[in-house]
């Protein structure tokens, strides 16, 4: 069968400075009609450049050096630009990662889609309006006839991505390139968009080139997969084969690095090092520096393609005929589970370290010249939680539900509207600024974005010292020089801290920009540890990082907990991280906690309909047993400025009852620790 798209020996370079960056280097792939082909790889490996090369929409500094990109046998690279314009949007169309940035903010949705239609079809105005309506309905925009005249800012993220898909479909393309189409979206919305793409493909039989870094997304909708590393493809297989038996050492490592419940008591496998710089000249296998199996040959000769079973090809010396048998033995032996001591969950109940009751944080919405308050954004609307020393509580929820606000509120970085935060027996909300400063050493916060959480103008040593100087126990502030730690002691302490987070002591003389994302996150952790806290609030510490780097950070957090007895409030939207790390879970929806309990209780027997939906939205990485197509959530998170009456979840709940619309449900208790707020279960009579 003739492939729809065939890329051969594609080489794209970026001319920056004196050494060109080989973003795509000898890439080959084939995509057939009607299949979803996933291109998987970590950030910076050249996925997006591949997509842009196909569209011939490369940035000015980029240049395609050689290769063929054949669509139905015609080489796109030989077409003049005018003909290429007829291909773009008509035969191949593309959707991007950021739906917010890809729509023109000053044009209505309808006119943007109409532009595409005009470009490719000769439609009469009324016909084109009909077609636009049809497209919007096809991608599941409710009330499409009204909404087509609205502007992009009136749409939410998920809706915008749907509009983008509608626009991409307008030309009835044969190939749809989707560059990380769901990365910017929440799990529940991601599930909706993936459903939509799968559904559309079945109806229109177009091919999809899906670019992603998420194994889960691949497992959900891809038919075939190619793994990309440092500008080239290293393994291709059908999705089923790949998930059953990933062959390339890199692919295997990716799987091993995924956090899972079954790995709770072990450390995660990590890939040492980082993606190599693409400006260098490679000799031999590009993965050799980080590969556990690498030997002489790997460093000298570039591995050739080897077909393991029909349709499953891999670029690794281990699979060439001479070495094959040897590897099969090794494969079982060498499974590296870096040893973190077995972890023993102890369920003893001691006094709470942190006790938050009925915490409310409302942000005023001011309007007009005199800035009078017209309403409140109820970011956090009465939540209570408890953390015991040495334990991890995970706070889970969609973006915008107020997770970060809770974290900052507990640290008193933002003013609290109502409620109490008791830390170690003292009520933080009633302390004055100075009294609070003395307490600050005991609870620290780690932020999501490692790129903005370190001051770029300070050396690592200054960053680490800052907290120490102010918050050394007993000398809370204004320490006289003689009371301070001697500089020698301080340096020792800094070296120790860096070692603890796995960085060499020399790192302290350097500046943040010299470190990668994962390393910066370690420095942020070291900074928090410098003042010996008892509680660490981790606000999505791994969501900006690649899987392999995420594994390093999770391992580190786990080891620190064991050695130092830290308690964590772990804020995340990633369920598999929760499974791996947390003792208890609290599920948050629109500023309130809807269900809480031990990890096993909540994840095995979720009670609240929202928890159930959230769990079923998480892509499952198992090719063998595709889980039954459960109901995905409809709709999106309402605005916290305008919360629904009664149960906040009722507009999206599949089990909604009349009473749900009126009064917020009381707590229902299932065990000593497991509780939820839902009318489906018998309500506690007295508890608040």
């Amino acid at each position, binding site marked *: 069968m003739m492939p729809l798209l065939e890329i051969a020996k594609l080489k794209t370079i970026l001319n920056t400075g004196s050494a060109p960056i080989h973003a795509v280097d000898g890439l080959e792939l084939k995509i057939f009609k009607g299949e979803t082909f996933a291109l998987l790889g970590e950030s910076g490996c050249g996925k997006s450049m591949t997509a842009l090369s196909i569209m011939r929409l490369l940035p000015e500094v980029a240049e395609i050096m050689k290769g063929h990109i054949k669509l139905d046998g015609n080489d796109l690279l030989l077409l003049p630009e005018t003909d290429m314009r007829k291909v773009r949007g008509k035969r191949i169309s593309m959707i991007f990662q950021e739906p917010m940035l890809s729509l023109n903010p000053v044009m209505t949705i309808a006119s943007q889609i109409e532009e595409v239609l005009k470009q490719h079809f000769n439609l009469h105005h009324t016909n084109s309006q009909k077609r636009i309506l049809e497209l919007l309905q096809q991608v599941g925009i409710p009330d499409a006839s009204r909404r087509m005249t609205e502007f992009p800012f009136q749409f939410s993220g998920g809706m915008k991505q749907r509009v983008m898909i509608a626009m991409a479909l307008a030309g009835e393309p044969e190939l749809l390139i989707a560059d990380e189409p769901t990365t910017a979206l929440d799990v529940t919305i991601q599930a909706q968009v993936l459903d939509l793409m799968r559904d559309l493909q079945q109806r229109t039989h177009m091919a999809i080139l899906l670019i992603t870094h998420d194994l889960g997304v691949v497992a959900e909708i891809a038919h075939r997969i190619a793994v990309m590393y440092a500008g080239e493809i290293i393994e291709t297989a059908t999705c089923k084969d790949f998930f059953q038996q990933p062959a390339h050492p890199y692919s295997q490592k990716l799987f091993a690095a995924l956090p899972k419940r079954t790995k709770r008591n072990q450390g995660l496998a990590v890939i040492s090092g980082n993606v190599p710089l693409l400006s260098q000249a490679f000799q031999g296998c590009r993965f050799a520096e980080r590969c556990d199996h690498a030997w002489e040959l790997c460093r000298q000769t570039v591995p050739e393609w080897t077909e393991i079973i029909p349709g499953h090809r891999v670029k690794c010396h281990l699979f060439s005929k001479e070495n094959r048998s040897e590897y099969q033995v090794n494969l079982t032996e060498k499974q590296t589970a870096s040893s973190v001591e077995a972890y023993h969950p102890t369920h003893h109940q001691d006094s709470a370290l942190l006790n938050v009751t009925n915490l409310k944080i409302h942000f005023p919405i001011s309007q007009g010249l005199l800035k009078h308050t017209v309403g409140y954004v109820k970011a956090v609307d009465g939540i209570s939680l408890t953390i015991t020393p040495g334990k991890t509580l995970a706070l889970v929820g969609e973006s915008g539900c107020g997770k970060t606000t809770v974290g900052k509120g507990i640290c008193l970085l933002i003013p609290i509207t109502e409620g109490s935060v008791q830390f170690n027996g003292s009520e933080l909300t009633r302390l004055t600024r100075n009294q609070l400063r003395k307490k600050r050493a005991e609870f620290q*916060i780690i932020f999501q974005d490692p*790129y903005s959480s370190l001051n770029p103008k300070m050396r690592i040593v200054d960053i680490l010292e800052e907290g120490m100087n102010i*918050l050394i126990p007993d000398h809370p502030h204004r320490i006289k020089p003689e009371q301070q730690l001697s500089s020698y002691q301080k340096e020792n302490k800094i070296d120790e801290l860096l070692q603890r987070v796995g960085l060499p002591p020399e790192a302290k003389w350097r500046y943040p920009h*010299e470190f*990668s994302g994962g390393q910066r996150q370690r420095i942020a952790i070291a900074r928090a540890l410098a003042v010996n806290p008892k509680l660490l609030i981790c606000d999505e510490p791994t969501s900006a990082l690649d899987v392999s780097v995420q594994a390093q950070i999770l391992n580190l957090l786990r080891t620190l907990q064991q050695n130092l007895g830290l308690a964590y409030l772990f804020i995340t939207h990633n369920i598999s991280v929760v499974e791996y790390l947390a003792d208890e879970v609290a599920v948050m929806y629109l500023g309130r906690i809807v269900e809480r309990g031990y990890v096993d209780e909540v994840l095995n027997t979720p009670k609240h309909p929202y928890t159930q939906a959230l769990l079923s939205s998480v892509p499952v990485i198992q090719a063998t047993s595709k889980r039954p197509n459960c109901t995905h959530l409809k709709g999106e998170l309402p605005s916290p400025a305008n919360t629904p009456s009664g149960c906040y979840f009722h507009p999206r709940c599949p089990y909604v009852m009349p009473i749900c619309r009126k009064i917020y449900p009381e707590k229902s208790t299932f065990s000593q620790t497991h509780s939820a707020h839902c009318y489906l279960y018998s309500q506690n009579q007295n508890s608040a």
Partner: protein
Amino acid sequence: MPFDPVILWTDALVYSLAATVIAIGWRMQRHTHLLTPWRRVTHSASGMAALTVLFFFILIGLLDTIHFRPALDKVSDNLGEKVYSVEVLSLFDIIVTPLRNRVEKTYSAPLSAHLYTKETVELPDGSQAREFTRLTFGGAHLEDPEVQRISDITERSIRGAAWGLLTWSLIVISLGMLLARWHKINFLQMHSKIWSGATETPWYVIMITLGLVLILLGIVVALSTHYHVLGTDKVGQDVLYQSLKSIRTGLVIGTLTTLIMLPFALLLGIAAGYFRGWVDDIIQYTYTTLSSIPSVLLIAAAVLMMQVYVETHPEMFDTILARADLRLLFLCIILGITSWTGLCRLLRGETLKLREMEYIQAAHAFAVSHWRIISRHILPNVMHIVLIAIVMDFSSLVLAEAVLSYVGVGVDPSMISFGTMINAARLEMAREPIVWWTLLAAFGFMFVLVLSINLFADAVQNAFNPRIKTLSERASRSSHRLGKMLQSNRPPSRPASADIPPEAKDNKVHS
């Protein structure tokens, strides 16, 4: 002592400014990260050419800042003390004494040997005639200017150019030697590297600019001993001298004004953005009000008030220059007060953005005090904006001075500046035949000065702009790598880096 040092107000400020610049430079020497953006400035060809030209301007400006009163020959009778002249001179004045002293009667064209106007002269035979008389100094050595002038000028120019070239080659050779020692390669290699443009700093651009400037300088010096290169003005003063003296005025206005407005802009801008609330309201209200008053009106009113004050208190100033200088300082202050709002607004916006950054939040979590957050976390991160604003403002201030002096509310009329030169040229342009050289000289000097400042400002902006930085940084990093691969004999620049795992070196910007 043969002289009595005089330190005027602006002199003191310029000295302290120079000291600050040197101190900062010395501090930066030890903190390589602070140097990185500056090093990027040195990689810009246009920026470095501009800096070479600016160097000469700054040199003249500084020489012209060292003021003193020379001793007079006669000794006062009663005390035996030396008597100092009432005229305050600068070191620069002494260096160019011939230019300063050789005053003609009135207008004369550039390089001319005759006055520009006819004069009634008494002929030897007693009759009177109207003719262009010979100049007292310009071309006085010629016997027959009609015949000799052109060839004399050519000859002198060539000689001057040759001197310029000679100086230039000396500089090139010694610079090459220094650089060769610095890079630890031999002299010839260094030179082939320089001239093929392979050095990171475009030394060949600097050399060529330097060559052109030195040749021009040689010619001007050679001619100016016997001619008025740019002619003379109404009272016969050398226009070249005036143009050179104007440089200091321009530079002082450009630098001191920024110096005066900087504390306001920094303090108020950051305070507004950081504290928000009522502090922000008050500051915003202030600068909105201030910037809606036409600044020319404000300046005119302030300067006129100042003028009246000075005239009613003549006893306060012992020399004319002191009076003019105070007015210059006052002009700087008033210009500073009217121009801080722009930078303040920029800084407020940037601080608003920065205060939400997670590292500031982390600092709050460490109970770091407000003052420390402002000085350690916010200030260093807005410095690039301040720097870009300063260099960008500089040229507009030089131009503003010219405009204000032209209108008559600028510097003291006795102070030589581009503005006063242009003001004088206003009348000359209406003369018949037209006197064009004053205006042209002022225009030419101002143009070169402002152009080089602007080119330099562009280079600074490119180097300090964070967005451009990431790309060129990435490029320079990869070029370093390539360089290392190609010549492995070069020792690694930072020994510590060898111990850091390879992933540390990849600091790609996350998308």
